[in-house]
Structure formats: C-alpha cells, structure tokens
C-alpha cells in the first residue's frame, strides 16, 4: 500500500464536470465523510482544491440543516 509511487487520483467532480455541489444531496456527500462524520481530506479523496472547497462548504451546510451529523458515534 505504501510502496513508493502512488497513482495520482483524479477529482471525481472534475471528471464528471460537476460545478455545483448540493448540500441537500446526502448520498453524494456521504462518500466524502468518514464514519464519524469527518470530512475526508483531499489527499485521500483525490479531489481538486476547487471542488474540495465547494464540497466542504456543502458538507458544513448539510450539517447545519441536519442532513449530515456533526459527529456521530461509531454506528449510525
């Protein structure tokens, strides 16, 4: 897993030319948060800076609107 060269991940939003990340789209945002509800960092998810910024914004909005949890116990 940690063997030298890693393949460059491609931003999934760029790949699908998605410009608007909807904070109400729980299923999509779920893919970018951990079990605990933390936002997965860019170096793991492979998102580009632009989309990570938008995604982060969306996730935070989603949390405010109780679409996503701020923090969750180990199960949900």
């Amino acid at each position: 897993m940690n063997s030298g060269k890693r393949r460059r991940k491609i931003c999934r939003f760029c790949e699908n030319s998605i410009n608007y990340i909807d904070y109400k789209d729980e299923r999509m945002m779920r893919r970018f948060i951990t079990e605990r509800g933390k936002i997965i960092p860019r170096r793991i998810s492979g998102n580009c800076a632009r989309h990570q910024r938008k995604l982060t914004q969306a996730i935070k909005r989603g949390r405010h609107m109780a679409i996503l949890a701020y923090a969750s116990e180990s199960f949900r």
Partner: protein
Amino acid sequence: MRLYETTFIVNSQADDASLDRQVKAISDLISNNGGRIISEDRIGTRRLAYQIKGLSQGYYTSIIFEGATTLLPILDRHYRLEEPYIRYLTILYEGDVAVVKEEAETTAEKPEEKQVIAEVAGVEEKPEEALEQPAEAPVVDAAEEPVVTETASPIENLVGAPEEEEAEKGEVEPPPQEPDVTRFDDDDEL
C-alpha cells in the same frame, strides 16, 4: 437581483394544513417583498441527522427565488420570530439556473398566482417586469451545461463500487482508508 436558495425545516408532526400554511408564509413573504419565486421544492419529511429541540424528524422545503438583498433580513427575521421553523438556511444559489427554470416553467402558474397576491397587498411589485424576466433569463443560462439534478448520479455510479463496500464494512471496523488520515507522509503534494 440575485438568486437565492432558502431551505427550512418545520415540525413534521404538524398537520398538513399548518405545514402548508408555514410553507406558504415564506413564499408569500418573498413575493410580497419584491422577490420572485423560481422553484419551490417540498422535499418532505426526513429524519434529522441529530435531534433539534427534541425532534428527530423534520419537514424540509427548499425555495429558489430571485430577490434584492433587502429581502434577506426580512426573511431572516421571520424565521427567527416564528416558532415552527426549527432550522433555516438562505444561501446564494450557485447551481444551474437553466435546470431550475425549466422546472419552474412546468409549474409556471404558481409564481404568477403569487404576484397577484403581491399586487393586492399593495407592495411595489412590478408584475410586468417580473413576468418578462423568465423569458430573457433562460437564454443566458442555457449556455451552461444543463446538469444539476443529474449531477449526483454519475458520481455515485463511478464512486459507488469501491466505496459502498467500504461503507458497509465501516460499521463493524474503520474503513481501510481511515489510517491514512493521520499520516502526513502520504500527502501527494509533499
């Protein structure tokens, strides 16, 4: 005039009539104060990710509208003063307007109906101007790619396979990706 999206949650335990009234109160407020509703999406009752005021379910409604900045404090005030709104969020709408407008055209009768109410209320609303706009605006927006509602699906499909698995597993043990989170030597940028 800018595009905004306001989403709010009301207590889903209320009866249909009062839910309707609460939603209508907001849309009337918007149109009575010079705003123009572009789409009204009643998402419906869904589970809250965490309890708010002891409630675990809420009725979500999302309204996309066009309005002046002066409308926002009015809206905000209403949300804060009226009890039933347990959460609200008003943001600048950055999504694809063309898609939203198409939707709005299918339910075209609604905004017109509301403008009539605005006139009756004697607020300085210009229905002519407001009615003209839907004709102009889509031309500008049509140039953008018509993807917003569909956007979610391609990503789900592509991403779905590897990560869904992980999500299921995750309930029992932390997903394999997780340990990387704390390792800084993993950074591609370094």
